[in-house]
């Protein structure tokens, strides 16, 4: 059984989507319960990873492999390390909350919505497990289809524009990655295994081309400046659940791709162009932070803040090169990489929570404009503390998970170059400014809009959802040790790999 745990994690939600669809339009209640059951079962199965995975070793474990296309050397091979385990559990956890969050909110064809979400979940878990580049690519692309449908059917007024832009943008990036992968396939002499690709010697020119092919694929997914413009559109138009999954999990896949492909396969080009990524990350952190400041739409504000926070992830990953290769400081490199990982997980909770909060407000007033609110705390006294907590976490308050990752990355970048640290640290000010200003305008003050007076407070279902997010934010904020321990050995192995040059 444990041998096929990863396959079970991938296919349980995908296959589970079939009964949800069959339950059909006539019985939405049944469809909801089945999908919740499937999501909970997947979460339970993902928790089984924790005892099965040996965190101290940090190697790829729970390997599964069978020959998928023998004549081309393509394998259906899965394995996980600490980083994947953390991301998989994040995915399954968020998925339950998404299903719960959509319970009564999605009235139009709920069974299709739930089924699409479950298929999406399976594909995302597949991305985190795949050790064969082609299998990775298949999952990487397949997840676009359910997301396309989710935004397009259940989204806002400009959903068609947003969903086409989302799909074409992300497809654009990944197809060049595919060309790069085929090129590497030749180099390895007929293997799509990522581990084999990492061993192939490549000249710096080849590495540079491959680096940019990968960069297109992953930078669009993260997203990095200047290919981030699809994200605010997709977020604003997506239904709440779509935004939550998009921010909490899908963006992580970009960062994860850098770790799995760019770092081990093209280490020298990664070092060579690390400055580029670092500069783009700093632009994301500072400039996009300012862009967030002027947004009148809450979802857009959080979407821009996501871009800024993901800037920390790419900064943490690529600063490691400077530290290992130039400053010869592997401990700091490890810290930076570790920080990037913690930031990924923590941003999953925080952004998911923020979008859920906005969803709660939107369901009641059907507006996401900050100016339509004000004095919400007077009518929603239970909701308000949650909102404040998540806003604080978003601005990186110590004691919340938002602080830990950013702090580690800033600390690491200080060892590389104090100036980088200085720019990165700006986020603490700008982030606090835009989130707190939003909180002030939404929650506090007098009620100016008569509709706000009629708002009802959160119900039990919503309290459950928000409490679960809050638990994640607080637990990892106060006691990040288990999370760090889970990923530590794997990160250490990655950092060791950075030092090995291919040229």
């Amino acid at each position, binding site marked *: 059984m444990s041998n096929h745990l990863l396959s079970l994690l991938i296919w349980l939600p995908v296959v589970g989507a079939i009964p949800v669809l069959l339950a059909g339009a006539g019985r939405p209640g049944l469809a909801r319960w089945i999908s919740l059951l499937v999501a909970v079962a997947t979460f339970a199965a993902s928790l089984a990873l924790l005892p099965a995975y040996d965190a101290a070793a940090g190697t790829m474990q729970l390997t599964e492999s069978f020959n998928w*296309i023998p004549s081309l050397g393509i394998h259906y091979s899965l394995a996980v390390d600490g980083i994947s385990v953390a991301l998989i559990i994040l995915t399954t956890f968020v998925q339950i909350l998404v299903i719960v969050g959509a319970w009564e909110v999605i009235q139009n064809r709920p069974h299709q919505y739930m089924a699409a979400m479950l298929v999406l979940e399976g594909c995302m878990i597949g991305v985190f497990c795949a050790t064969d580049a082609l299998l990775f690519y298949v999952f990487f692309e*397949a997840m676009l289809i359910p997301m396309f449908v989710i935004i397009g*059917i259940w989204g806002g007024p400009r959903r068609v524009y947003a969903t086409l832009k989302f799909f074409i943008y992300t497809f654009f990036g990944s197809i060049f990655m595919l060309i790069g992968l*085929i090129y590497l396939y*030749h180099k390895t002499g007929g293997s799509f295994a990522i581990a084999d690709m990492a061993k192939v010697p490549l000249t710096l020119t080849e590495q540079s081309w491959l680096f940019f092919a990968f960069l297109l694929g992953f930078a669009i997914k993260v997203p990095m400046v200047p290919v981030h413009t699809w994200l605010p559109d997709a977020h604003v138009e997506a239904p709440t659940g779509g935004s939550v999954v998009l921010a909490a999990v899908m963006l992580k896949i970009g960062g994860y791709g850098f770790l799995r492909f760019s770092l081990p396969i093209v280490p020298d080009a990664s070092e060579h162009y690390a400055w580029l990524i670092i500069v783009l990350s700093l632009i994301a952190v500072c400039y996009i932070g300012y862009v967030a400041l002027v947004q009148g739409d809450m979802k857009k504000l959080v979407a821009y803040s996501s871009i800024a926070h993901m800037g920390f992830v790419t900064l943490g990953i690529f600063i490691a090169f400077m530290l290992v290769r130039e400053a010869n400081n592997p401990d700091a490199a490890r810290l930076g990489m570790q920080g990037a990982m913690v930031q990924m997980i923590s941003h999953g909770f925080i952004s998911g929570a923020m979008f859920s909060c906005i969803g709660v407000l939107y369901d009641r007033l059907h507006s996401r404009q900050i100016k339509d609110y004000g004095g919400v705390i007077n009518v929603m006294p239970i909701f308000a503390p949650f909102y404040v907590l998540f806003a604080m976490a978003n601005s990186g308050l110590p004691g919340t998970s938002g602080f830990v990752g950013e702090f580690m990355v800033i600390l690491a970048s200080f060892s590389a170059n104090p100036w980088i640290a200085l720019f990165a640290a700006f986020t603490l000010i700008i982030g606090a400014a835009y989130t707190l200003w939003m909180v002030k305008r939404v929650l506090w003050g007098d009620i100016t809009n008569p509709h706000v007076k009629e708002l009802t407070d959160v119900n039990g279902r919503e309290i459950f959802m928000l409490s679960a997010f809050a638990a994640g934010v607080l637990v990892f904020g106060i006691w990040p040790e288990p999370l760090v321990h889970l990923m530590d050995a794997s990160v250490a192995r990655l950092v060791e790999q950075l030092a090995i040059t291919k040229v």
Partner: protein
Amino acid sequence: MPGINDILILLPEAYLTVAACVLLMLDAFLKPGQKGAVHWLSVLVLLVGAYLVVSGQPDGSVTAFGGMFVRDGVSEVLKVFSLLITAVIFIYAKPYLKERAIPFGEFYTLTIFATVGIMFLVAAGSLVTVYLGLELLTLSSYALVALNRDSRLSSEAAIKYFVLGALASGMLLYGMSMIYGATHSLDLHAIHAAIVGTEWHTLLLFGLVFVIVGIGFKLGAAPFHMWIPDVYQGSPTAVTIFIGSAQKLAAFGMAYRLLSTGMGDIAGGTSGLAPQWQLMIAVLAVLSLAIGNLVAIVQTNLKRLLAYSTISHMGYLLVGLVNAGPEGYSASMFYAVSYALTSAAAFGMILVLSRAGFECEEIDDLKGLNQRSPWFAFMMLLVMFSLAGVPPLFGFFGKLLVLKAAMDAGFLWLAIAGAVFAIIGLYYYLRVVKVMYFDQPNEGTEVRATSDAASRWVLSINAIALLVLGFAWSPLFAWCQRAFGV
């Protein structure tokens, strides 16, 4: 003197020819109420034909009538799939023909004759057989296009098809005569030997160019694609589906026989004319990708959209062919099979959604399909994503293989062009999905699936197969590779 062995090698073709004649007679003598029997009989005839092809398949390659016909792995795969796809097309077409009072007998007989033409073409061992198969196929197709006599669009399409087809035929024949003049042989293997053995000269090169024009026309590759949109749109959809799917297998077979068997490839160590035609094919490929994908974007008619999409798909097929080795041929053949299956489902969808007095031809007719029949909307979604080449659907793996084949041969720029145009193509496939899922249905046009259960079932199986084959394409690809001895 042809012996019994020759006949046995040609058994499937001979059987189908006789069966088609029997069907024609049967149709003439049956009472109007009993004509439904012809339908199921002709499906059976095709399935038995496919069985004969597989069961009589020799190990390796044998020839009949002094090398005129070749029975090898390549012809086996192409024949089996053309027969199966034609059988599927018959099932889709039945309600369509019935509601429009298009005569059953002629349709089935002509289509079976065209299929025999395909089988000759893909099994050709000499220039004469190529021409024979091609004419049998195209003459039957001209008549099929004109089958709906009352439709002006149909007649116009038939004339256009006939005139341009005859022109292409002439070009091909002209090219063949030059090749004959240069090599003094009609047999493809002998031509190959003559080319490799001697210094090739200008006459041969001219012949090659004309032959490629003929192939380009048959495939519908740009710039010889002009007939495709009009013929696709004007033909009865039941005929379009045949031209758009099964015939592409024939075109691939013809290209392979003429270019590889006849003009030589690189992998065998004997280069022949391959370096010359590689570049010509690459140029045709890029033109087809560009014209097909760019012009498809502005189409509002679904059949025209699929027509331009065909042009771009033929571009991908040529991308694989550029490899000029067994790896490339097997990739292209895999692509042809996957495209034929997908395109059968795409046109099948139009057939299933059309009914008397209402052709589901405009993209806008699909508006809100998800609200009326979510199952068929989902099937169409699978078809569109497969055409666009999004994994895990079947179409993606075809693209993967042809891009890989082009890179194998050192045509990196071609692979990158293929990738770029895949993104552009994505847009119009997504637009169809958008219309089905995100738009509100038009008032007045009630798009409904046909009441014919068989065609609904087969269509569902066809579309689901695109998903299943996305995971289980290995055996099919292995079969294609075996055919070329990889």
